[in-house]
C-alpha cells in the first residue's frame, strides 16, 4: 500500500530504454517516483521510447521512398507521444506537490469537494477532407502525377493517435480515412486537436545517401537542439494552441512532413451524424507539400459518456403501485443513462428481461426526497416527477434506509450534473463502432525484403510470434513456415508453397492488444521459390486457394463502410 509520505522507488529494468534515457541525463529518476496510478503512464512512455528506436533503425535501413515515409511517420508520432507523456507526468508531479503542500498548511474546513463530471468515450470516424483541384496551373509537367503522402494526427489530452497514411494524387476528389479513432477517458470539456500532415512522395532533392545521415542524427535521440525544444514543450505541455503537435524533423534529407491544416473540435461539435467543420490552413503554396484543400473536414464525432452506458446506481426499492396508496411493490432499481429501470429481480437486469417499470430521468425531471407525508412506516421516500404534455406523472419510491436514500439522491444529482455537462450526448446513446485494427503498411515493395515478415513488437519471443501467426492464419498454416528454421535448430521444411501463407495478410479482424506490428528482421532473405511450380496447398473448403506466391493477399478480413 502506498502512502503519500513514503517515497516509492520505481524499478527501472537494466538495459531498458528508460534506463538509457536516465543515463543520458534527460530526466531525473525523481520525476518517476510516482504513485501507482502513474506507472501506467511510465510504461507507455517506455514503450514509446522503444518504438522510437525501432523506427530509427527502420528508417536507416529504408531504401525506398514509401517505406521511408511510413517510417518517418511512425518516428514523428512516437516523438510527439513521448513529449506528451512527459508533459503529463510533469503536470501530475506538480499537482501532487501542490496538493501535499496544501495539506501541510493549516486550513479550516476548506472548499467542499467539487463535483466532477463522468468520463466518456469519444470517437471520430469517417474522416473526409475534400480537395479542390484547379486545372493545370499547379502542375509544371502535366504528364507527371504528383503524389503526396498524408495522414491525420489526433490529440485529446495526453493521448495521441494517428490515422493510416494515404497517398493522394490529383485523381482523388477527397482524402478519405477509413480508420475510426477512439479516445477513452475524455471529459466533457475535451479538446480534440486534429492535424493534417503531408509530404511529397517524390524526392525533394534526391539524395541517395540521405537515409543514413538521417538515421545517425535521429538515433542520437534527443540531441541539443531537440532537448531545448523538449523543455520548451514541457512548459506548454498538453498540446495547446498554435504550435503543432509534432516536432519538426531534425535532420535534412529523407521525407519531411509539413503541417497542412489543423482544427480543434469540442463537445459542441459532437453529433450522431456527419458534420462539416472548418479547417485552418497552415501551409501556403510555396511549401513543397502543399495540397489544394477545400478548407473543411467532414467527419462523425460521437461521444458516449459513461453515465449513459454504465449503470450508475442500483439497489432495492419499493414502488408505489398506481392507484393503490398502500400497496408497494418491491423491485430492483438500476439507474442507467436517462432511465431508472425497475426490475422484478436483480438477475433480470443482466438477462435482458423487460423491466417492470421504467422511469425516465432527463433534464426536465424533478426529484424530491422525503416529501411524502410522513405516515408512520414510510420514511425515506423519493419522488420523481416528469411532465408529459399537460400531465405531470409522479412516481414515489421508498428506499430501505436513510443511507440508501442518500446514495440514491447522490447518484441522481451526479446524473443531473453529468447531463448538464455532456449536453447533447445524454439525449440518446450515440453508437460507437469499435475501431477495427488497422491494416499494417502494405507490402509496398515489389522485390523488397522489408515487410515480408511481421512481428508484434513488445515481444521478442519467437515462440510467441509464431503462436500469434498460427492463431491468425488459422488452419491455413499447416506446416511451420520455412523462415522459422532461421531461428530454431530444426531443418528447413521442404515445402516451399507454405511460404505463400506467410505473406502479410493485409488486414485482420482479431484486435491486436499491443498496437501496430513492426517488421522483425530487416536482413532476412526471402525464400526462393520462384522456380518451383506450387501446387495448391490443401486448405479448408471455405477458403479460396492461394496460388499467387509470396505476396498474395489472402482472404479479405475487413468489411468496410463508406459514406456516399
Amino acid at each position, binding site marked *: 500500500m502506498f502512502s503519500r509520505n513514503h517515497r516509492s522507488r520505481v524499478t527501472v529494468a537494466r538495459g531498458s530504454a528508460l534506463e538509457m534515457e536516465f543515463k543520458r541525463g534527460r530526466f531525473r529518476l525523481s520525476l518517476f517516483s510516482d504513485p501507482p496510478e502513474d506507472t501506467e503512464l511510465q510504461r507507455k512512455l517506455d514503450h514509446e521510447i522503444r518504438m522510437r528506436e525501432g523506427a530509427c533503425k527502420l528508417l536507416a535501413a529504408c531504401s525506398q521512398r514509401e517505406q521511408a515515409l511510413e517510417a518517418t511517420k511512425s518516428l514523428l508520432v512516437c516523438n510527439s507521444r513521448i513529449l506528451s507523456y512527459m508533459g503529463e507526468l510533469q503536470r501530475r508531479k506538480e499537482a501532487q506537490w501542490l496538493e501535499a503542500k496544501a495539506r501541510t498548511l493549516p486550513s479550516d474546513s476548506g472548499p467542499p469537494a467539487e463535483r466532477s463530471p463522468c468520463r466518456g468515450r469519444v470517437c471520430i470516424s*469517417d474522416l473526409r477532407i*475534400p480537395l*479542390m483541384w484547379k486545372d493545370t496551373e499547379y502542375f509544371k509537367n502535366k504528364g507527371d502525377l504528383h503524389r503526396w503522402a498524408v495522414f491525420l494526427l489526433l490529440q485529446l489530452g495526453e493521448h495521441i493517435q494517428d490515422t493510416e497514411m494515404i497517398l493522394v494524387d490529383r485523381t482523388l*476528389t*477527397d482524402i478519405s480515412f477509413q480508420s475510426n479513432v477512439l479516445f477513452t477517458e475524455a471529459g466533457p470539456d475535451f479538446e480534440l486537436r486534429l492535424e493534417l500532415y503531408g509530404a511529397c512522395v517524390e524526392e525533394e532533392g534526391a539524395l541517395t545517401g540521405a537515409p543514413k545521415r538521417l538515421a545517425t542524427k535521429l538515433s542520437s535521440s534527443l540531441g541539443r537542439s531537440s532537448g531545448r525544444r523538449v523543455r520548451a514543450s514541457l512548459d506548454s505541455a498538453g498540446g495547446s494552441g498554435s504550435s503543432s503537435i509534432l516536432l519538426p524533423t531534425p535532420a535534412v534529407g529523407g521525407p519531411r512532413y509539413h503541417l497542412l491544416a489543423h482544427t480543434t473540435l469540442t463537445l459542441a461539435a459532437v453529433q450522431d*451524424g*456527419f458534420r*462539416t467543420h472548418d479547417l485552418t490552413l497552415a501551409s501556403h503554396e510555396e511549401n513543397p507539400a502543399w495540397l489544394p484543400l*477545400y478548407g*473543411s473536414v467532414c467527419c462523425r464525432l460521437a461521444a458516449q459518456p459513461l453515465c449513459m452506458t454504465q449503470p450508475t446506481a442500483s439497489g432495492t426499492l419499493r414502488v408505489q403501485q398506481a392507484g393503490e396508496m398502500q400497496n408497494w411493490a418491491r423491485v430492483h432499481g438500476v439507474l442507467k443513462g436517462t432511465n431508472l429501470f425497475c426490475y422484478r429481480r436483480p*438477475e433480470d437486469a*443482466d*438477462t435482458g428481461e423487460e423491466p417492470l417499470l421504467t422511469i425516465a430521468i432527463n433534464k426536465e425531471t424533478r426529484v424530491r426526497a422525503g416529501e411524502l407525508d410522513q405516515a408512520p412506516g414510510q420514511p425515506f421516500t423519493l419522488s420523481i416527477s416528469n411532465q408529459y404534455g399537460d400531465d405531470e406523472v409522479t412516481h414515489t419510491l421508498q428506499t430501505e434506509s436513510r443511507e440508501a436514500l442518500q446514495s440514491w439522491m447522490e447518484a441522481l444529482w451526479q446524473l443531473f450534473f453529468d447531463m448538464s455537462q455532456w449536453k447533447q450526448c445524454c439525449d440518446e446513446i450515440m453508437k460507437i463502432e469499435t475501431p477495427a485494427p488497422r491494416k499494417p503498411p502494405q507490402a509496398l515493395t515489389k522485390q523488397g525484403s522489408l515487410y515480408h515478415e511481421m512481428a508484434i513488437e513488445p515481444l521478442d519471443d519467437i515462440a510467441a510470434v509464431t503462436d500469434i501467426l498460427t492463431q491468425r492464419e488459422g488452419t491455413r498454416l499447416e506446416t511451420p513456415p520455412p523462415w522459422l528454421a532461421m531461428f530454431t535448430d530444426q531443418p528447413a521444411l521442404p515445402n516451399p508453397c507454405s511460404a505463400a501463407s506467410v505473406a502479410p495478410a493485409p488486414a485482420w*479482424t482479431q484486435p491486436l492488444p499491443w498496437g501496430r506490428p513492426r517488421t522483425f528482421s530487416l536482413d532476412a532473405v526471402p525464400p526462393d521459390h520462384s522456380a518451383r511450380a506450387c501446387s495448391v496447398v490443401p486448405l479448408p473448403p471455405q477458403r479460396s486457394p492461394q496460388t499467387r506466391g509470396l505476396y498474395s493477399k489472402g*482472404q*479479405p*478480413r*475487413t*468489411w*468496410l*463502410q*463508406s*459514406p*456516399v
Partner: protein
Amino acid sequence: MSAQWAMGQVKVPALEPWGPAVYSQMAVSISQQRVEIHKLRQGENLILGFSIGGGIDQDPSQNPFSEDKTDKGIYVTRVSEGGPAEIAGLQIGDKIMQVNGWDMTMVTHDQARKRLTKRSEEVVRLLVTRQSLQKAVQQSMLS
C-alpha cells in the same frame, strides 16, 4: 457474471400434445424497389446521405444485413436522417443491385463508392432489394 445467467435462464414453454399450442411463424419476403435519389450539394461535393458496406474485396461474413453470409453485394449500412437517401425512401439493410444501370453485385467496395459518387450525375436511380419480415402467429386448438 451475465454468462452464467444466459445458460440457465432460457424458458421453454411447456407444450402439451393435445392441448392448445401456439405457433409463431416468421416468413421473409424479398421485394425489389426502385429508389431515385437527388444528390444534395454540400460545398464542392454532392452527397447522397447514406453509407455502403460490402464488395467483392470485403469479408461478407461481417455483413450484419445479409441473409446469406457469403453474399458480397453492396448493402446500405446507414442512412443519414433527413438526407437525400432517406427522403427518397432508401432504408438501412437494402441491397443495392444497380446504380443508373450499372451493376453493383460484382464490384469492389471502392468501385461501388465511385459509381455512386460520380460528380457528373446529380440523380442516381438505384435498384435495391429489401427484406421484409412477416410474423404470422397461428393458434390451433384441438377441440
